[in-house]
């Protein structure tokens, strides 16, 4: 079943891709092939593959249970939030929080997680910023 849905989404994607290729504005100074042809070939092969997946599906993979799935989505959200807040609160604070969260969710105890999170953030800061001189996001506190 998973593969059938996947194939259907793939078909949709191919159609969307082909449509977006059709509306590419061609400039009057174009070569013989133009900017549309190759994307259209891609869309066609994509459609054939998706159709094959749809018609000849593999056995369904083992999907995570709902709590595991929520866990996964939560970690994605944390990473996106991390990216958004990085320039605002600075590298060390953001990284300490994000890595503490991740290691906690992977099974470290709560107090240990805080220690691990801070050590990862400070460790990366020392090695990559102080030692290698890489520029990391600066927060209001200067680190």
């Amino acid at each position: 079943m998973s593969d059938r849905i996947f194939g259907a989404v793939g078909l949709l994607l191919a159609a969307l891709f082909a449509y977006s290729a059709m509306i590419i504005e061609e400039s009057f100074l174009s070569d013989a092939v133009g900017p549309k042809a190759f994307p259209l070939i891609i869309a066609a092969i994509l459609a054939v593959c998706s159709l094959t997946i749809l018609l000849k599906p593999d056995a369904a993979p083992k999907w995570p249970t709902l709590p595991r799935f929520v866990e996964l989505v939560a970690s994605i959200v944390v990473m996106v939030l991390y990216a958004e807040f990085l320039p605002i609160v600075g590298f060390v604070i953001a990284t300490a929080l994000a890595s503490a969260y991740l290691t906690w969710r992977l099974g470290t105890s709560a107090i240990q997680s805080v220690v691990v999170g801070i050590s990862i953030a400070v460790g990366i800061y020392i090695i990559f910023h102080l030692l290698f001189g890489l520029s990391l996001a600066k927060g209001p506190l200067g680190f």
Partner: protein
Amino acid sequence: MDTLSSLADGFVIAMTFQNLILALLGCFLGTIMGALPGLGPSNGVAILIPLAFSLGLGATPSLILLTSVYYGAMYGGRISSILLNIPGDAPALMTCIDGYPMAQNGRGGEALALSGFASFIGSFLATWGLVLLAPQLVKIALAFGPAEYFALFALAFATLGGVSSTNQAKSAFAAMIGLGLAMVGVDTQTGVPRFTFGIVHFYDGIDFLVAIVGLFAISEVFIFIENRHGSADAEGKKVELGRLTPSWKTFWGSFPTIIRTSLVGFLAGVLPGAGASLGSFISYSMEKRLLDKEGTFGKGDPRGVAAPEAGNNAAAGGALVPMLALGVPGSGTTAVLLAVLLALNITPGPLLFANNPDVVWGLIAALFIGNFILLLLNIPFVGIFIRVLLVPPRILMPIVAMVSFVGIYGIAGSTFDLVVMVGFGALGWLFRKMDVPLVPIILGVLLGNNMESNLRRAITISDGDWSVLFSSPLSMTLWAISIIGFVLPIFVGRFIPKKAKKLPETVEEEVSN
């Protein structure tokens, strides 16, 4: 002779203090990444690429660092295979079969040392193979026109899926996704924006480094979160190492095996799409068929440890041949290395040997040096790496994620790219669950623009006649090979599935390393 003098020049370049330090660092990091389950050569190199750039290293030094990591990971994979029965990376899978029983019999140290020697000989011979074969391949490649290149790229996609995936439709699907992603951005020939949906960030295309790090490194973190096997696999297992040198008898008994499997592995590596996993797989099966008369294979036969290790290291060297000479990578990790070259504005292929001989030969010389460093690191100092193995994934995985963020932030400097990277991580997780291989996606993103411009150049030269793609004997041959390479596995049955079923979840997806 020409080749040898170029190689000598390469040694002059590689022998600078900075380059030697980078080779040492790369070998060290690579061995660690190989040894840690969950980090293999392709995601190890992927994490380090952005760092190499952010540090402002030049072309040759970056390549030396990253290929040392690549060679190092091939060595490191065996450590956890032998000691913990968990392959550190996909190519080291076959080493578990005889390595772990040896460790259980108290011969772990011997197995580590022997496999270290086997890795060394495999890499050493393969690097010579690279020296001798690559310039010959370059001569052939000089006859390639745009139509032939287009066919060559098609061949790379067809065979990459054919050997490493279990479902041809899915690997072709992955390749098309990659090519489609490469199309995003302003068309270089006519200047019109394509598939940007009005988002300014997309005008200069999707940065392939962002895609690679997201697909390989971040998705790995998601896999761990999903399964929560963050609690250490390694904790609580302590094995007696025994002596750290193989006896002469064991060594000479395995020597013919090492030589044979080095050659087989090298050939498997040179073939597009096969890579190190297949190299070790074929090596082991061949030796088992040849030598296993008393049924000792699988119960701790030293030759069963030497065979896959010589095979996968030789394949790692072999996979560099098509990558450097043709610009078409032979495996997953060399695809990632190709990204390094492209990001450095170096076009691999025949022109690389003519225009940047310092890069090529400096790199090859560094491989020789790195191989000696690795031998040293992996036999007398193997204890360091055994201790690193005790870092549990629940701590390791956040480090992987954060280092990926640091690297991408360092080159892109924008939140937008970080979010795109997380998006690729989620996509990578989904594709792994669906058994869609990730390597063709990367290859598509990397080669897409080049493939298209070759197509357009070919057709422009022929004045709009599409049949030019199939007109020369060379391109006909390439098309024929790609069709056979794509179709044959469907009928003949696949090389890998039987073994893929036995793979633990974390290494299952990177079979084409």
